[in-house]
């Protein structure tokens, strides 16, 4: 009996010990470890990682509150007034337009993180034995991310493939920052697959990004007083000519075809684009935000009164850069007096569905049957150029103030896509006219070929139904929106495409007053490094003045 007890006494703890000593393991379920990723996916897996880096472009470049907001709402082209019970959002929109943002601004943080996600995923491709072509594509995407970071923040963090993610990466800024991007782009140019469509990294996209680097390097080094080295300008011209002379691109006869739901095939101007497929939500960037964010609630069918968000507008100053209001506007399809880019003309597939005539929307709006629309209070839905000076609309007309901008034509191809998506419009990231205008600008800036530059501009203007200009001064420092300047031409062609802030800085007028931004501070030439990013990486240095 006693022996039996003793056996139990000693076996019980032994039993406990045998049941113990599990090697703690965390088996991943839906996800893979790095080693498994290599093994499971093989060389094909690298392609999947590269695809992810491409799709990372969708968020930061499409959403109305990310890169678009920082690059456009901070300029004379766009702003979001608070309208009664709408669009206060703790003032985030107003501070972007009147340049009173700070390092805690949510958009400033989200853009930093979003662009660095591209940076990370592109770098990560290089950890997985990419082919030469895959590596070149990944390095292009990374260069695009770094360029945009440098443009906005004046610096960017950089990791080599395989770096420990818990260590703070090095940070590059200024000349070193631009030169690294230039060296990357030059290095990959020979390896970019010749057959790549404009939805993938392609040689012309690499050249376009290189042109942007060369054109802006002087501004990136000294934003307060940009300089333009002749050699850099020559590079812009050479690279641009390679694109122009390839004859792969041409001006699309109807300007708004470039932004239509079928622009993937209808436009001949896309150099680098983000493709969206109507009706398919996979890899869809939500491009419908581009018109929802600006259109009034009643721009749609009565069943969907909240489809339009009634927010984003442009200001009268920018509208005046079209010279609009001077010539009598008839807006007939044959009207050659008025720049077609101003819009206001019947667009098949849109006007017959909703009454919307793409472009800058001013004055009374009509539905598809030609009936004058009203706002929700029963006032005429007539967009008013004047916006309250503090950007807080409180009057009876609070729903209709501000000129609206419909650049991407709403997708009416089936019920619902125009407001809920997924719409078919491809997002234009690099467009041919930008290349032409950069070549022209370089020729004019360097003085190497001023008439050639003017001819390029007039070629574009002719395609847009605008009269030629004999002389084109770069900028009027006393009137940012002087219609007779080169800067104005860039605005007319590229408005709401995310280049305005860069342009205004390069042309030296970003700090000038314009509508609803009476004063400024030189620190605003750069956005602040977000406080949270600063806390995570001590190598980042807060920009001066913040």
């Amino acid at each position, binding site marked *: 009996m006693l022996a039996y*007890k003793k056996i139990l*006494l000693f076996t*019980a*703890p032994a039993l*406990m010990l045998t049941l*113990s000593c*599990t090697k*703690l*393991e*965390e*088996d*991943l*379920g839906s*996800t893979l*470890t790095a080693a498994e990723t290599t093994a499971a996916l093989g060389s094909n897996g690298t392609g*999947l990682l590269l*695809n992810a880096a491409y799709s990372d472009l969708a968020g930061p470049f499409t959403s109305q*509150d990310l890169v678009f907001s920082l690059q456009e709402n901070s300029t004379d082209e766009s702003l979001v007034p*608070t309208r*009664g*019970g*709408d669009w*206060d*959002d*703790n*003032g*985030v929109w107003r501070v972007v337009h009147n340049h009173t943002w*700070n390092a*805690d601004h*949510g958009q400033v943080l989200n853009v930093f*993180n979003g662009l660095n*996600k591209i*940076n990370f*995923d592109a770098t*990560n491709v290089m950890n997985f034995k990419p082919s030469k072509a895959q590596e070149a594509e990944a390095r292009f995407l990374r260069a695009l991310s770094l360029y945009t970071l440098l443009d906005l923040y004046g610096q960017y*963090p950089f990791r080599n493939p395989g770096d420990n993610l*818990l*260590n703070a990466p090095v940070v590059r800024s200024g000349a070193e920052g631009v030169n690294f991007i230039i060296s990357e782009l030059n290095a990959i140019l020979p390896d970019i697959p010749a057959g790549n469509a404009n939805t993938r990294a392609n040689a012309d996209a690499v050249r376009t990004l290189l042109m942007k680097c060369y054109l802006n390097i002087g501004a990136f080094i000294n934003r307060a007083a940009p300089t333009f080295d002749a050699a850099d300008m020559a590079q812009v011209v050479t690279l641009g000519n390679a694109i122009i002379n390839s004859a792969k691109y041409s001006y699309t006869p109807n300007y708004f075809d470039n932004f239509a739901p079928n622009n993937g095939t209808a436009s001949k101007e896309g150099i680098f684009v983000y493709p969206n497929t109507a*009706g*398919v*939500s996979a*890899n869809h960037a939500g491009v419908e935000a581009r018109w929802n964010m600006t259109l009034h609630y*009643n721009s749609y069918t*009565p*069943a*969907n*009164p*909240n489809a339009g*968000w009634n927010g984003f507008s442009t200001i009268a100053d920018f509208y005046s850069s079209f010279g609009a209001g001077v010539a009598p506007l008839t807006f007939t399809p044959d009207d050659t007096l008025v720049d077609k880019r101003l819009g206001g003309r019947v667009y098949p597939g849109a006007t017959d569905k909703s009454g919307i005539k793409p472009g800058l929307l001013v004055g009374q709006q009509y539905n598809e049957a030609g009936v004058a629309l009203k706002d*929700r*209070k*029963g006032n005429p839905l007539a967009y008013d150029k004047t916006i309250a000076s503090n950007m*807080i609309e*409180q009057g009876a007309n*609070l729903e209709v103030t501000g000129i609206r901008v419909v650049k991407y034509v709403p997708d009416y191809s089936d*019920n*619902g896509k125009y407001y809920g*998506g997924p719409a078919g419009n491809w997002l234009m990231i690099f467009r041919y006219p930008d290349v032409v205008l950069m070549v022209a600008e370089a020729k004019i800036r360097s003085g190497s070929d001023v008439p050639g530059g003017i001819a390029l501009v007039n070629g574009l203007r002719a395609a847009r139904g605008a009269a030629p200009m004999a002389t084109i001064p770069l900028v009027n420092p006393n009137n940012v929106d002087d219609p007779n300047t080169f800067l104005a031409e860039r605005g007319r062609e590229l408005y709401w495409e995310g280049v305005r802030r860069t342009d205004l800085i390069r042309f030296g007028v970003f700090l000038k007053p314009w509508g609803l931004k009476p004063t400024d501070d030189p620190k605003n030439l750069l956005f602040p490094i*977000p406080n949270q990013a600063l806390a*995570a990486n001590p190598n980042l240095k807060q920009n001066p003045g913040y």
Partner: protein
Amino acid sequence: MTAVLRLLCSALMGLLLFVSLSVQAQDKVITGKVIDSKDGSPIVGASVVPKGSTKGASTGADGSFRLNVPATVSALVITSVGFDRQEVAITGATVDVSLVQANASLNEVIVVGYGTSRKKDLTGAVASVKAKDFNSGGAITGPDMLLQNKVPGLEITNTSGQPGVATTVQIRGTSSIRSNNSPLYVVDGVPLDGSTARPNLGIGFGGSTPNSNPLLYIDPNSIASVDVLKDASSAAIYGARGANGVIVITTKKGQAGPMRVDVGAGWGVNTGYMKRFEVLDAGQYRDALKKYKQPATLDGGQDEDALEALTQTGLSQNYSVAFSGGNEQGKFRAGFLMAKTDGFLKKTALDRYLATINGQYKFLDNRLTLDFNIVGGTYGEQLTSVSNNAGSAGNIISSAVSWNPTIALQKADGTYNFPSNGSGNPLAFNEAYNDRSSVTTLLANGSLSYQLTKGLTYKFLYGVNHGVGTRKASIDGWLEGQSGISGVGVAGLADAKLFSQTITNTLNYRTQLSEKLSLDAVIGYEYFKRDYSGGGTFGSGFNTNLSQSARTEILYTAMMQNALTHTVFTYINPTSEIQSYFGRAILNWNDKFALNASLRADGSSKFGSNNRYGYFPAVGARWTISNEDFMKDSKTFNNLALRASWGITGNQEFPPGSSQEQFAFTSFNQAQQVVNGNPDLKWESAQQINFGIDFGLFGGRVFGSLDYYNKNTTDILFQTNAIQPAPSSLSFVNLADAHLINSGFELGVGAVIVQNKDVTWEVTLNGAYNKNNVTDLLDPNTGLPLLIKTGEISGQGVSGTLGQAITNDQPVNIFNLKEFKGFDKTTGNQIIGADPVIGGDPNPSWITGFSTTLRLKKFSFTLNAGGAYGFLIYNNTATSVTNIAGIAQGRNIDVAAYESEEGVGSGVAASQRFLEKGNYMKLRNFTVSYNVGSMGKFVKNFTAYVTGSNLFVLTNFTGFDPEVNIDKSNNSYPSRSIEYVPYPTPRVVTFGLNFSL
């Protein structure tokens, strides 16, 4: 020596036996009745034994007994589980006894981790609530609600009036800066992981619906007691999961004795709003149109109360039956509940079909004990569109409060009015929105324990928690005014599966080391594994149910193939494992001094490879002064004890996989890294000290405890902005330097004011004060305070606004809002400061509870109330839904806005204007019951009752319910005390009856 003692002992016993035998000839017959002193109800199965004898009788179903006792015996000893032992002198042929519940008794056994403890050995802060002290009433659906306001320092906040919704449960304040601050639940010895298998499914309005209560599968009627382990010396035995305190739930067990059947039935109705958020009625609205010079066309000429139209009386029903019985060798109990709870809002309900089955069987001369406990069942929820973070599209409540009260919701032909003012139609929302979930959960464990030698017991336990859930939701396309829904329709299906296993081996040793020194020790090993997976599909673009006039009964979820587009998602979470070694020893010297020491080593697969094991020690001591000689004769104190404890507990509530590099297939033809591994990741550590006094006065008529604690959380688990470039914007780290300190005191007092045969009156009161502060939350580079924004403010016009912050030297979730400087004298526009400022504490400093029971003969009156004080609530509904701007659009506005000096052009803005004092006192339930007693031959203890729940609330808060904690977290940083278009709280009246067979 021991052999001699044993011999002596048995000799004495024999002698006694002989004596009792020898006098059996002169018996007398004693009859009597044993009742509960609290309510006079008969106590069934109480043991009545002549003093000095071992043989006695048990009371019958009506509490009566009949007993032959030797004439020499002068007293009876009456004992019953849960009551104090009582000795009564035999003065005549009838002896009636009223037993006092063991609540205040020191011999009471409390379930602590991996065993039980006598109350007199307790060194920490542990509160035990027995079934008869639970809250009652029709509003109770989850076990946690039984405890509301019953335990000082335990804060249980209803987050919504929806039946079955999750409550926020916190012990001693917010001790994490992550979303999960819940205590660990242990049910019949099995630790749970706090999750449910109810899938989350966001369709339509972009908002997420509140979570359901993870304990819904536990039948509240089958719970015997709940023990709350508050301090570290009690909770440290649960190591890395004990930092938020532990709630130990013990289900009712069978008792040795005759077969017993308990039956209960109840019927309840919703009788209206406990409190309404006041918006304008039709008359006020017309006045407002004039006041604000709005066009008369906005007056629809009718009189509609949209908030009223949304609600239903319903008829909630619950039926329960429990069978129990057995003998000393084998006992069982099986309890069943069928309940249907109709929600206050139309098309909402909670159905429960639950069972609680357990048994205990003894073999091999009672040395081997087999135990099993099965808790489980299925519950279904019908939900409506009440979401935590609805944006401009709103939800059913935002739609109702902003509905123009001069327009009828429905036309005469039954179709709905859809104004183009953005309010939406709440009744149409309700009809078009279909959302049902069903969860089946089984929590089962079986254990074998074997007594190896006297006092030494080995126990093996295996437990599983298996839950499967499905959810089907759709919104009909005929609903107008909703982007992405109107004209197309949306639907989603989702499922989830939870499976966790626990294996526990323990060795318990109880012995008397010397005459005065006893030891109670346990060592053990435990293994826990958890798996969670799920998936679902969404569809949109249906071609049926697209117009009001052509509605069909068929839900989209019944014909997903009809959708134009589909998306699919599936996931399997990383497996998590915990392996633990633990031990505890309790030494008691002469019932004067007790010492408790424990240590647990927890290894968790969640921790990074550099930090696999954490160690959690605790010690506690108790000095029972009233057992000292100098206090023995005290007339005042029958109990007085001092306690002190110290310990470290951990928290490992972060997503599994956070320490590993993970790559995921994010969509078709894409893979990317989604987590940057952190091999240094480890548990959060909370060090807590506790000092307490337990007291009992005037023979136990007044009793209570006072505790002081200080809880210091370090190595705070925290989602921080990742070091970019990084695979995700946030990643988990341990904040090395920061501290989160909760300190405060808790007082619980009870008194039996009147106690006699016909009347008893008892009162209990509790109060807890807590102060929460974050320190050393600094940027490691600049040394400046970090400011983490959270507290999402939702709605049209305030997108992306965050109203709270976690920052240095402030309470967690301090409000961070722009200053409100009044209204512009000429325009009436709000004047709002430029930048948000820190100020305004959303954490209550005081929480209190009050309950009282008055018994007058067969009537009993029980009242439970509770409140919270010293905090602010942000009224997000007033900010963005019923603001003044609405009147110009033809929407309704709230009375506060109407009565203010605000002009109609004033815009929307989040500011300190909408901070309101949250102080409240709520009458949780009031019950009147009548104990009929026996009816006929078989029915015993028949009781009928009426309970009113949430009868009223005293508060100055203008919203629906000051008891509010809608989940407004941002990036999983928690939020606190923000109200936003919640599911309103109804008054519920329940009629019911209970009896036994």
